[in-house]
């Protein structure tokens, strides 16, 4: 074997090893399946405006009680009803905000559309706020430290923008809500508050 052939083979080996090494390095930095499905989260607090791709959302008040009075019915619970009032303002198109979930510190989730829960939020035009309300029935023991997740599309938050709002629920807040016999759900209205 000539010296030149030997050098070419050695060089080929080094290049092959380098390519494999770079590939492994890249793979280790690429998002795994779970990470790539994760939405783009934007954190916020009560009364703070947060962008969610199709507009901006601002959670205004959070209240709780042991029964829910809505325009069509009154519903008691052995747990708690949490009523969230929020404003959504579309930025570019006529749309609404269709996904709202309460998430406990341990990862348990309660959707605004599951079971008896309600998310009263229709659509609006760009620049015109819509006042929305959601009522979510939750077990009182699990909601201390819970947060709210709001997203433009219903049930499909993968790859999408999600506003993550700290609800500031403390043991004292839960105690107050347990003592509150009724919370009211009024529905959604168009226009600035």
């Amino acid at each position, binding site marked *: 074997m000539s010296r030149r052939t030997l050098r070419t083979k050695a060089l080929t080996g080094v290049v092959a090893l380098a390519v494999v090494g770079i590939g492994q390095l890249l793979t280790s930095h690429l998002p795994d399946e779970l990470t790539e499905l994760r939405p783009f989260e934007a954190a916020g607090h009560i009364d703070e405006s947060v962008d969610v791709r199709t507009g901006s959302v601002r959670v205004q008040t959070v209240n709780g009680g042991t029964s829910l009075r809505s325009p069509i019915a009154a519903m008691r619970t052995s747990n708690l009803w949490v009523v969230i009032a929020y404003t959504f303002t579309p930025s570019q198109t*006529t749309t609404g905000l269709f996904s709202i979930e309460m998430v406990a510190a341990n990862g348990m989730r309660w959707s605004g559309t599951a079971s008896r829960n309600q998310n009263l939020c229709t659509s*609006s035009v760009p620049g015109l706020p819509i006042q929305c309300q959601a009522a979510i029935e939750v077990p009182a023991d699990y909601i201390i430290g819970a947060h709210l997740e709001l997203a433009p599309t219903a049930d499909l938050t993968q790859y999408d923008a999600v506003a993550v709002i700290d609800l500031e629920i403390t043991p004292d807040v839960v105690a107050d809500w347990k003592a509150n016999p009724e919370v009211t759900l009024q529905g959604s209205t168009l226009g*600035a508050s």
Partner: protein
Amino acid sequence: MTATNRPSWAQRNKWGLILLLPALVLALAAASSRVQLFWWGADLHQPISGTQGRPLVLTDTFHAPEGYFKRSVEVTLQGVSPGQAPLTSLGKPVDTPSGSKWVSVALHIKADPKSPLSVCQVALRDGQGRQADYDPTLLGMGTLRSSPCVPEDHPGPSGMSAEEQAEAETEGPRPAEYDIDVPMLVADRFEAKHVLFWLNPPKYLKISVR
């Protein structure tokens, strides 16, 4: 064989290199079918542009259970002006939400009375690309007529079946041409630059407001 006669790497891989380009083109073309399937046809991507006062024709082929049909509608934008709140069923103006205003879009429409047109959509677009759609549910069902571009009392057929055509005849056929005002709710600071009109995306009329 001497070193100078040995074929170069490019020569040895000639066919691979020649086929590489068409292979890349084919791979891209195959992947691009998804653009057509999931994106292109789902939204407004083919404008037919015109200006206020000049008729524009929109032609499309639509599918009904009875087969494929062609329809054509001629639309003339007559004007966009400040509008009045539409009336409720009790004859009172609806409450205008705080921070919004009504805009009236005056259209002249010409189409075969047997063509189903009630699926039409109207929208306003401003200079920043913001799009306010006509949405009959914005202020609750029944406040605005369900279709923006057909007369409420003579909307014409909703489809191509014999029953749907006969029902339209019973209601009284839709005129072959008519004027119609479309009440549009927009935010206070929204200034319309274009009126959009479409039946089925991706084709749409994009009419400049003078």
